[in-house]
Structures are given as structure tokens and as C-alpha cells.
């Protein structure tokens, strides 16, 4: 259901980094992408990338903490693309020889997105993704 852009300044969600947050983030960004011109196929790629990035925040970011901190998801429409940011305030992206994951997340996020920049939060990790989407007419 496309909605006029003025009514959608951007998406911003702050959640506790627990497993159930991942679906919430994924659904919110997929809906935002659909509303802003993404095809169903494209929206599902975006949802998968967001899901993997949020999963990393849930699984890795707060390893050293007693309680998980937050994961923040932002999305906004840019000229010709959708910008999505997944940020946490945890230990920062670093190697973990005992990772429970299969090590597919980062390469998967890379292939799904048109640009993927991994930056340090202060503290934490910021994953900035860009997905090319033709401007709706």
C-alpha cells in the first residue's frame, strides 16, 4: 500500500536486543521498504539483511553484559535508494573464535545490500546499508 512520502519521515525503532526483537525489526523495515517503492522481492532481501544484522546484535553485542542493551533500527528513503542502519551499543564488532553462528551473516549482508559499511559505535557497532530502489513515480 504505497503512502505519500511526506507522511513517512523515516523509521526509527529502539528495542532490547533479545531474540524476539529480530522479527519486529525485520517486519518494520520490510513494511517501510514496501511503502517506499520496493518490490516484494526486494523488500524480502532487505528484511533478510536487517534480520541478519539484528541477529548479530542479539547474539554478539552484549556477550560481556549481564543484561542485553538495545538495538536500534533506522530506515529512510534517499534519492534512488533506501538507507538502513542497525546499531548496537555493545562490545564492538570483533572476532569471536567460539561464535555459535555459522559465519554467514556478514557476507550475506554484503551480497544483499548495494553498499555495506561497518563502523564502530561509541561503544558498539553500526551497520549502514544502502539498497538501490528506483524512485517511485
Amino acid at each position, binding site marked *: 500500500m504505497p503512502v505519500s512520502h511526506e507522511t513517512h519521515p523515516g523509521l526509527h525503532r529502539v528495542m532490547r536486543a533479545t*531474540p*524476539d526483537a*529480530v*522479527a519486529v525489526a*525485520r517486519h518494520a523495515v520490510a513494511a517501510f521498504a514496501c511503502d517506499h517503492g520496493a518490490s516484494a*522481492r526486494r523488500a*524480502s*532481501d532487505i*528484511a*533478510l539483511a536487517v*534480520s*541478519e544484522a539484528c*541477529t548479530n546484535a*542479539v*547474539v554478539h553485542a552484549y556477550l560481556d553484559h549481564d543484561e542485553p542493551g538495545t538495538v536500534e533500527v533506522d530506515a529512510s528513503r534517499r534519492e534512488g535508494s533506501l538507507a538502513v542502519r542497525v546499531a548496537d551499543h555493545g562490545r564492538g564488532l570483533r572476532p569471536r573464535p567460539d561464535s555459535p*553462528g*555459522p559465519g*554467514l*551473516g556478514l557476507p*550475506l549482508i554484503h*551480497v*544483499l545490500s548495494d553498499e555495506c559499511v561497518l563502523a564502530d559505535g561509541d561503544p558498539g557497532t553500526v551497520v549502514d546499508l544502502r539498497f538501490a530502489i528506483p524512485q517511485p513515480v
Partner: protein
Amino acid sequence: MTLAGELDIAAVSQLDEALHRAQADAPLVVLDLRALEFIDASAATLILAADRRIRRAGGRLVVVRGGATIHALFALIGLDQKLEFMHRPFAAITEPVAFTQGG
């Protein structure tokens, strides 16, 4: 065994248990993905691990492909070549081992 709903990090331990249980039940496990709405890399990797485990034990895992976006994830991580996929199950097999997960 039929998987439905969304398989992400919130469901992996449940999926892992279900796959272990299915293996204990029969030497041929048919995993039907047609009702699945989402799957992530860690869940797909659990299916690969189950395949390896079941084959090592002399059994066989056959996966009934999900929709286009589900199968896209398997293709992206190269599992479309590593698992035994089929398009439609034999009618006989689907009935008895139905299982619904997540949602």
C-alpha cells in the same frame, strides 16, 4: 515434517530439537518448507547440519522447496547445491509426519 511461520534466531533451538526428533523417528526425513514465511542463515545451516548427521547415520533428508524467497536464501548461501531438494513431495510421505513450528 512441515515447517511453517518464520524461522529466525528466536526459533533455532526449537528447530534443532525438532530435527533431532525427526531423525530418531525414521531413516527418511522429509522436510516440507512450502508453508515457511521466512528463514535466516542460521536456521538453514541447522538443516544442513541435520542432513549431514542423518546421512552419517545411514539415513536421508529430502527437502521440499519453499517459495521463491525461501529458496533464494538457500541459493545465496550455496545450500541449494548441498541439500537434496525436490519440488513436490510424494503424497504418501507428507501426511504422517506433520509438525508445525513457530508461527
